[in-house]
């Protein structure tokens, strides 16, 4: 029997607000342990939470960017469980009345530009827990509460993914989106974006959902894809063997490439959700929503589609440009000034990206302005310098305070494009190499390249290669 994989995703993203969700403590990764906490986020007796409204704004932005309905009234609930990193014994979250509901995200799922629409069930706000620390240096465990009370949004998808590749494309789209919105730095390695996966399988053609299994401890997007494939295969094998799938929570081990049961159904938590009496109902009026809507930037998926369509770029180049907002801005600026889009994209994705990688610099730390970059592209376009010379110019205008023209001047990179001078050289070279001419006419097309190379040598590398080739061809009587 053929099976279909059905996947739903729950993405947690830490919000990059200045302060925590319910107290004035700084929201910052990597500080010395237990230095960013106060009576509220350590749950001292008597301390009370007060909602940071910036958290609501960030969640609304995400809701708008994913086409959700923003509920004008929603509440905050307490979700109870005991764990040492959860100081209050409950997490402030949202139960049956989330802030955002019923949206979707259109995601390009392959390089040919195929776009799929994935449903977003809800987006709600909640707080993060602290972190347990285990080390051989001490007995037992310690708790760092710097992260306690850091704001999160949880983005719950519909079970709309039919492959691990779709799930991964969606996760990458979510990551790009929160970064573009400026609401999260979405660093998987710092835990600021995390994901739980629900996987079920069903016979192809079936409309009913199979029993889902939840997986936790997924630390990378590629790990998510591996975990989905593993779990789907496990379920199919089980069903084929005559077994049934039980609802349970499994823990993914990316090193071993397998998962193990964390919690079976009998031990499912009863979180005893109820409205947090310390906090007020969240009321969002329309003017607030509209102000946030008007502040939305162009969203990454839409921008991707625009780059591929308007500039006729292949997927890879559009993706490389959009992966770094500064690159996308620079690219659009030079094209706006009149540069050829294809050529600008080639330089951006080729040498510019290579040089940034070699130097370990982000684009914003270089001296590559749109004006200088355009000047360089224009010199090449006009034939004033060769592509090879362009590479030398680029490296200098990126890292030195010098214009493209000044580099050309200083290094003598100007290209000989004077027709008469070049024709004269071609005549001489053809005359001096009768063997090569003969070979060419005998069918050895390599001889053409040899003759062009000889001409280039005569110009000490400064001859315009395209013109030289053209004149050699003319001299050989083939154009």
């Amino acid at each position, binding site marked *: 029997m053929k099976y279909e994989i059905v996947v739903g995703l729950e993405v947690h993203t830490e919000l990059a607000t200045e302060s925590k969700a319910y107290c004035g403590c700084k929201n910052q990764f990597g500080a010395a342990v237990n230095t960013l906490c106060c009576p509220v986020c350590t749950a001292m007796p008597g301390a009370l939470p*007060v909602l940071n409204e910036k958290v609501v704004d960030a969640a609304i932005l995400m809701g708008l960017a994913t086409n959700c309905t923003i509920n004008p009234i929603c509440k905050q609930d*307490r979700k109870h469980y005991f764990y040492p990193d959860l100081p209050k014994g409950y997490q402030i979250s949202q139960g049956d009345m989330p802030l955002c509901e019923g949206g979707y995200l259109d995601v390009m799922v392959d390089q040919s530009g195929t776009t799929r629409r994935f449903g977003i069930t809800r987006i709600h706000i909640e707080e993060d827990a602290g972190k347990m620390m285990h080390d051989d240096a001490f007995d037992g465990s310690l708790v760092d509460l710097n992260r306690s009370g850091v704001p999160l949004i949880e983005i719950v998808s519909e079970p709309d993914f039919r492959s691990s590749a779709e799930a991964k494309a969606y996760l990458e789209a979510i990551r790009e989106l929160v970064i573009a919105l400026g609401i999260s730095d979405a660093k998987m390695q710092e835990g600021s974006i995390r994901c739980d996966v629900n996987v079920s399988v069903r016979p192809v053609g079936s409309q009913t959902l199979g029993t889902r299994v939840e997986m936790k401890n997924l630390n990378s997007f590629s790990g998510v894809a591996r975990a989905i494939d593993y779990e789907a295969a496990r379920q199919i094998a089980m069903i084929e063997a005559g077994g049934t799938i039980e609802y349970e929570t499994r823990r993914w081990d990316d090193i071993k490439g397998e998962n193990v049961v964390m919690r079976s159904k009998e031990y499912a938590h009863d979180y*005893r959700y109820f409205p947090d009496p310390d906090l007020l109902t969240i009321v969002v009026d329309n003017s607030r929503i509209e102000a946030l809507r008007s502040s939305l930037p162009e969203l990454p998926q839409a921008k991707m589609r625009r780059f591929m369509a308007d500039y006729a770029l292949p997927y890879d180049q559009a993706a490389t440009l959009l992966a770094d907002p500064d690159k996308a801005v620079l690219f659009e600026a030079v094209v706006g000034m009149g540069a050829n889009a294809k050529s600008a994209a080639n330089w951006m994705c080729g040498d510019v990206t290579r040089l940034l990688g070699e130097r370990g610099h982000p684009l914003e730390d270089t001296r590559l302005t749109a004006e200088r970059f355009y000047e360089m592209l224009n010199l090449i376009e006009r034939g004033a310098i060769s592509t090879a010379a362009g590479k030398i110019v680029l490296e200098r205008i990126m890292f030195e305070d010098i214009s493209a023209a000044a580099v050309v001047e200083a290094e003598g990179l100007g290209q000989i494009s004077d027709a008469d001078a070049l024709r004269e050289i071609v005549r001489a070279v053809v005359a001096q190499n009768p063997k090569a001419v003969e070979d060419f006419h005998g069918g050895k097309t390599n001889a053409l390249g040899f003759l062009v190379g000889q001409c280039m040598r005569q110009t000490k590398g400064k001859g315009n290669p395209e013109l030289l080739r053209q004149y050699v061809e003319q001299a050989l009587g083939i154009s």
Partner: protein
Amino acid sequence: MNLYEKSAPELGALLRSGACSAVEITKDHLRRIGAVEDKIGAYITLSEERALQQAEAVDKKIAAGETLHPLAGVPIALKDNLCTQGIATTCASKMLEGFVPPYNATVVSRLDTAGAVTLGKLNLDEFAMGSSCESSAMKITRNPWNTNRVPGGSSGGSAAAVAACEAVLTLGSDTGGSIRLPSAYCGVVGLKPTYGSVSRYGLVAFASSLDQIGPMGRTVEDVALCYGAICGHDPLDATSARRDYPDFTEALGGGVHGLTIGLPDEYFGEGISAKVRQNVLEAVAALEAEGATIRRISLPSTPHALSAYYIVSSAEASSNLSRFDGIRYGYRAEGCENLNELFERSRSEGFGPEVKRRIMLGTFVLTGGYYDDYYGRGRMMQQRIAAEFSDAFEECDLIITPTAPTGAFELGANIGDPLKMYATDVCTVTVNIAGLPALSLPCGFDENQMPTGLQLIGPKFSEARLFGVAHHYEKLCGGFKLPGLS
């Protein structure tokens, strides 16, 4: 008259005239505590040194000719569920024995700023759960009127300390009657303010939607002064109201002429002792003679209030007390093998039986499958009761009821019978459920020569009106009587 018997304005006048110093006043109260505390047992912790430093600071201000707050130099004490930086805050529980908070409750900061002198921390029922102070894990507090009887609860230490002149004013907290019941039992004045008028920041939470901190004192004026010092918006408490408050002392002396007072039938029926009913009705008659109009009203959902209260308050308590897990502070069981054992044993050993009973009750009513039947219906009943009060205040300015069905009972009388203990709250819980202000003031004595209380209930933020009527009645009946302690 001894200094320790004086009211806040009397002490203020002495200070301003230079007749005595704040240090002398503080020392006089400390001597009084030394003399009677063995019999009463109101204090869990005395903060003598800090009190004397605060008094010295007030004396310096006087010497420098600075303007004094009316509470400057006035000795006060705090229920031991209010966080005090540097002074142990136990909630009368083994769970928090020796716990020293790193911060002050907002009310504590406000009283410190006013220059009030904090003598110490007062006994209560464990985590404010109880009506007699007997669930305290720390000590027994006795009623100054008869030391074989309870002071009431949960703010029993706060009421007993004021009645025995071990402090001029005290703060209590009231979730279902915990200020008003002990005020009635000990013959003092106690205010449960409008929900949201006093910041709860730093009050160790019992039931967040019902808890309010309020003042207790021997005179209405003292209580009004103290309320004025602690009320007002606090950005640290999201449920704190944003509004301005009047000078409450200006409301005193206004009389009762033209006011309509409602008497709800449901508070005068079965379960209310004949003597309590008689005392309250005599007080009502006296107010009528002064020009008030008396109107019988009905608050029909009252019989359901106690159940709704115990469901909602226990649900919130079970959640609020989750933070006591043995990890960061407080009691931790020793020799645990794993995490679950650490949680279970720390909580089993750290909490007393009444607290555990409420946690279990609250956990049950929030459990999936029972939520709608219990917590959901409790909240619905809460809305209905609030609506009935709203309707009642369309036709009357305030409502008078007994504070409690009887006077103080004997120590141990209700310990084995939680339902009987819970029933002492029957007249007070509705006020918390509806978020209203209510004031209990002394109103005669019962057949055991124990004080009984009258409860004035007003619409939200009508404290000034309550003070005015209470002050008028206080004058009519002669005011506070000192219990016969030597």
